[in-house]
C-alpha cells in the first residue's frame, strides 16, 4: 500500500483511531444511561416512526382503559340504585297485598299509605344517585337531578345516552333509561298522570289506600307486578353493560401487554449486548491510547549515538 510512512501520518492515524473509539464509546454510553437504543430519530428513522405510532396506540389504549373504569363505576352506581329501588317496590308490594285482603282498618290503611309515600320519596332519591358528581339517571343531562322530592314527580332529565369509548370506533352507552320504568307519576298531588308506569302505579296505590278501596288495590297489584318486571329487565340490562365493560377491560390489557412488548423491542437497548459492546469498546480505546503513548515516541534518533 503506502510506501513512505511519516511521523505526521502516524500521529494523525493514532489520533483518528482514538477519536473514533471515543465516539463509539460515547454512543454506547448514551444507550446505557438512557436504556434506549433510539435516542434521536437519526439513530433509527423507521424505528422512530414505529415508536411514535406505538406510543399513540398505547395512549389510546390507556384512554380506553380509563373510560372502561369510569364506565364501570357509572353503571355500578346505577346497579346499586336499581336494587335499592327494587327492594322499596317489593316492600310496597307487601303493604299492598296486606291492604287488599280487606281485613285492615281505615287507620291501618292510612298508615300504610303514609309508608308508601315515604317509599316513593326514597325511590326518587335513589333515582337521583350521582357518580363522580353526575346524575346517572338523567340521560345525557348529567348535571340535572332527574326527580325532585315532594308531590311533583315530573322527570327533569332527557332521553340522551351517556357513552364511553371502549375501543377503536366502539362506544357503549353506560346509562340506564330509568324514566321508561318510573314514568311521571303525578305532577300535582292526587292527580296521577295515567301513563301506567311505576310511579303512577305507586301514587295510585297510595291514593287507593287513603280511600280504603281494596278492589282498586287489587287491580293496582296487577299493574305493580308488570312494573316490577320492567324494573328487573332494566337491572338485567345494566348487568349486561357491566359484563361488556369487563370483557373490554380484559381485551385492552392483552393489547397493552403486546404493544408494550413491541415498543420495548423497538426502542429499548438490549442491555446485555450493550454492556458487552461497552467493555469491548473501552478495551479498544485503552489499547489505542497505549499504542499512541508508546509507538509515536520512537524514531531513528533513539538509536543513533550523539556523535552520529
Amino acid at each position: 500500500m503506502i510506501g513512505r510512512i511519516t511521523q505526521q501520518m502516524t500521529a494523525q492515524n493514532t489520533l483518528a483511531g482514538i477519536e473514533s473509539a471515543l465516539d463509539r464509546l460515547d454512543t454506547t454510553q448514551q444507550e446505557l444511561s438512557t436504556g434506549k437504543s433510539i435516542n434521536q430519530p437519526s439513530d433509527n428513522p423507521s424505528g422512530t416512526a414505529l415508536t411514535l405510532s406505538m406510543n399513540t396506540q398505547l395512549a389510546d389504549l390507556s384512554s380506553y382503559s380509563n373510560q372502561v373504569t369510569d364506565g364501570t363505576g357509572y353503571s355500578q352506581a346505577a346497579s346499586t340504585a336499581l336494587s335499592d329501588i327494587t327492594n322499596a317496590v317489593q316492600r310496597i308490594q307487601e303493604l299492598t297485598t296486606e291492604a287488599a285482603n280487606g281485613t285492615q282498618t281505615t287507620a291501618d290503611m292510612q298508615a300504610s299509605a303514609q309508608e308508601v309515600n315515604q317509599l316513593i320519596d326514597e325511590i326518587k332519591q335513589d333515582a337521583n344517585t350521582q357518580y363522580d358528581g353526575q346524575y346517572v339517571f338523567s340521560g345525557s343531562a348529567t348535571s340535572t337531578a332527574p326527580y325532585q322530592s315532594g308531590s311533583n314527580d315530573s322527570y327533569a332529565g332527557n332521553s340522551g345516552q351517556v357513552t364511553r369509548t371502549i375501543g377503536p370506533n366502539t362506544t357503549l352507552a353506560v346509562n340506564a333509561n330509568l324514566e321508561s320504568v318510573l314514568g311521571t307519576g303525578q305532577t300535582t298531588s292526587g292527580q296521577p298522570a295515567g301513563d301506567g308506569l311505576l310511579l303512577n302505579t305507586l301514587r295510585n296505590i297510595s291514593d287507593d289506600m287513603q280511600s280504603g278501596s281494596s278492589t282498586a288495590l287489587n287491580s293496582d297489584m296487577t299493574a305493580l307486578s308488570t312494573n316490577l318486571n320492567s324494573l328487573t329487565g332494566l337491572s338485567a340490562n345494566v348487568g349486561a353493560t357491566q359484563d361488556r365493560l369487563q370483557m373490554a377491560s380484559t381485551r385492552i390489557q392483552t393489547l397493552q401487554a403486546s404493544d408494550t412488548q413491541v415498543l420495548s423491542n423497538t426502542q429499548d437497548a438490549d442491555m446485555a449486548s450493550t454492556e458487552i459492546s461497552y467493555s469491548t469498546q473501552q478495551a479498544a480505546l485503552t489499547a489505542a491510547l497505549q499504542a499512541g503513548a508508546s509507538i509515536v515516541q520512537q524514531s531513528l534518533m533513539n538509536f543513533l549515538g550523539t556523535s552520529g
Partner: protein
Amino acid sequence: MTIPTYMGLQTALSGLEAAQAAIDTTGQNISNANTPGYSRQTVNLTERSELTIPALSSVTGDGSQFGTGVDITSITRIRDTFLDSQYRDQNTTENGASTSSTILSQAQAALDEPSSSGLSGQLDTFFTDDWASLASTPSSAGAQQGVIGQGQAVADTLNTLSSQLSTLEGQVTSQYNTLTDPSTGAVASDANQIAQLNGQIAQAQAAGINANSLEDQRDNVIDDLSQYSNVNVTTESNGMVNVSFGNAAIAAQNGTTDATPLVNGTSVDLTDNLTDSNLSGSGGTLGSLLGLYDSTTGQGQLATYSSQLDTVANQLATTVNSAISGADAAGATAPPFFTGTTAATIAVNPAVTASSTNPPYTAAEANAVASLSGGTAQQTYNAFVTQVGSDVSSAQNTQTTSQSLLTAISNQRQSVSGVSLDEEMTNLIQYQQAYQASARVMTTINDTFTSLLGMLSG
C-alpha cells in the same frame, strides 16, 4: 598533455558544496516536519560536464574525459498534484456533509423526539387524555381546564418549533453571507491570497528561482478554499494557477472551459462566482448552506421542514375544528377550538378560553375530537420526524465516509510530500559522510602538493 594541477581541489570543493546543500535541505525538512502543508524538498544533483584531455596516455597517446565534480541543479519540492485535486474534492464533500449534519442535527434536537415532551407525546396527551376526560365528564371544570391547557401546550410547541426552524434558516443565511462577503468573506480572502501568490511565484520563476515555499503556501490556501465549494485548478506555463469555483469548477472538471475563473492569474472575479446559480447545488459548505436554506428563492431543506410543520398545524386545526362542528347539537354552533393555519400562528381560540362555560363543548363534540387520536395530523408529523431522522442519519453517514476517505488521501499525500524523520536522519548520516570524504580528498591533495613543494625546496 597533463592534468590541470588544481582541478582535484575544485572537484572536491563541488562535492563539499553538494553535501552541504543536502545537509542544509535535510535541516529544512526536519525543521518543517510538523508544518501543515509543507512539502519535503530534495536537492537535485547532476554530474558536472567532463574535461576532455587529448593524448592523456603517454603510452598510446589516447585522450580521455576527466570528471570535474558535481553540480547542484535545483532544490525542488516533492508533490503529487493529482493527489492534491483528489484531496480537495474530498475536502469539499466532507465539509458539505459536515455543514448539513450540524444544522440538521440542530433541527432534529429541536423536535425532541422520541420523548414525552415532544409534539408527538403532547398530541397523545391532548387527544387520549384531555379530550377523552372531557367526553366522560363534560361538566367537570378540571376536564375543561385540562383541554384548554393542553391545547395551549400543543399550540406553543408548534409555535416554538416553527420559530426554531426560522432561527436556523436565519443562521444559515447569515453564515452564507459572512463567507461570501466580497470584502471580508473567507472566499474573497482566499482568492486574493492565491492571486497575490500567483504574482510572486511568476516573478520568481521568471528569475529562474524555484519558489517552493510560495507554492506550498498557495496549495495550502487552495486546500482551504476547497472547503467552501468545488475547486478546479489549472497551472499556466508561467507558474500561475487559474482556480475555478463552484458549479463552474464541476463543469471545468468535465472539460468545459471556464470563461470567468475565480482566480485568473493575478486578478480575482468574485461577482461572477459568488452567485446563487454558481453555488446552488455545488458541494462544500456554501453549496450545503444553499441546499439547507436559500434566502434568494426561499427554498431548501429547512423550508421544506417548515412547510411540513405548517401542514401538521393546519391538519390539526382543521380536523379538530371540523370534528367539533360535525358533532354540534342540532341548531347549536360551538366555537372552533383552534385558530390559525400555520405552525407559527396556531393558537387556542380566545372565544373558547373566554367562554363562561369553558370550553363550551358537549360530550358528543369532545368524543368526536378524542376519536381523532392517531389521525392525519399525527401521521403527517410522524412522517416528518422520520424524514428529519433519515436526513440527519444520511448526512452523518456521508460525513463519516468522506472523513475516512479524506484521511486516506491525506495519508497518501503525506506519504509523498511529508517529512519522515527516520529518512532525514539516514540522509543526514549519508550526506555527513559524503562531506567528510570530500574533505578528506581535499586534505590528500593538499598533502600531495606539500610533499612535492617540500621536495623542491629541500
